[in-house]
């Protein structure tokens, strides 16, 4: 690893992050699709943006197996957290209103 090649890689990552950010803004102000479609599209671009940071800057693309194991557990519990919240929204106690 040398500093010059690291700088070159970082410039590319920064440009990619700037592009994905611009894409999110463009989608947000566009008139295509309804609100759910827009939100899904924006979050999909945000995931790409997050992949760039996690994959290249945090070196997750070439990390040790134990780190991946920790992250798999994290993803499982995070999905559970979001999933249970959404599930609870459809599960009102009898006699209450939304």
């Amino acid at each position, binding site marked *: *690893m*040398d*500093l010059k090649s*690291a*700088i070159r890689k*970082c410039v590319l*990552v*920064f440009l990619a*992050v*700037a592009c994905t*950010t611009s894409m*999110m*803004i463009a*989608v*947000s102000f566009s008139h295509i699709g309804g*609100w759910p479609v*827009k*939100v899904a599209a*924006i*979050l999909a*671009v*945000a995931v790409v*943006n*997050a992949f760039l*940071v*996690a994959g290249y*800057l*945090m070196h997750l693309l070439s990390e*040790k*197996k*134990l*780190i991946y194991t*920790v*992250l798999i*557990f*994290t993803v499982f*519990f*995070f999905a559970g*957290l*979001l999933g249970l*919240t*959404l599930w609870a*929204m459809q599960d009102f106690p009898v006699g209450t209103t*939304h």
Partner: protein
Amino acid sequence: MEIPYTIQARPDTGLYNAKLGIWLFLASEVMLFGGLFSAYVLLRVGAPEGFWPHGWLSVTLGTVNTLILALSAITTLLAWVACKVGDFKKFKLFHACTLLLALSFLSVKSYEYHDKWIHYEIHLKDGRIADGHLVRQDDQQVVIEGRIVTDERDLYDLRTQKNIPHDEITLSRDNIVKMENYGPRHNTFTAIYFTMTGLHALHILGGSVVIGFLWGPGSRMWKTNREQFTNRIEVSGLFWHFVDLVWIFLFPVLYLT
């Protein structure tokens, strides 16, 4: 007694203690912010039709902060690479940039908070609502730079309203029923906005203190134990990248959707 694997990686995992420790800590942080994102989803989906704010936050300022944080993540990585290749001067330079960028991020955030703090929604006796930024006030009157609306829903979706007129409006205190700024208690949106961005800003502040220490007095370790110092830079860098990751989701969720 010497604690093993503080510098060298454990042969079976390939990790030194602090690296495994920071990843476990970041996993707990994912759950912390995950809980808040869940709360946001719950509030957003549960809001009555037409009563969830759109366009209340400046996309320009949010974009500037996104780029500032992305740039700081890059200077953090380069500071670590500089340590790896033994270039201490470059390390100092890159981490000084990180600190300046962190300060810039917090400055922009403070400006945004201040803007919300001086922005008032004023309910009048005749049912109309005055909305705008406070210019001055005394015992008799309140002066704002803004507009008056008759329907509260006009205050929620600012994206669809073009060229909203803003005039200096003088209101007598006798005509005011309720006056409240756009602070955390204004509504559920401002509550979750201040909670999430406030917690994130605290992380930025905490990370800046650690990076500042490693840049300043903590950098003496470079002379005594170069490898452990480089590990510290890597671990603090991982935390900083995580803070950037959180913002990558906060920005679209709060500013764009």
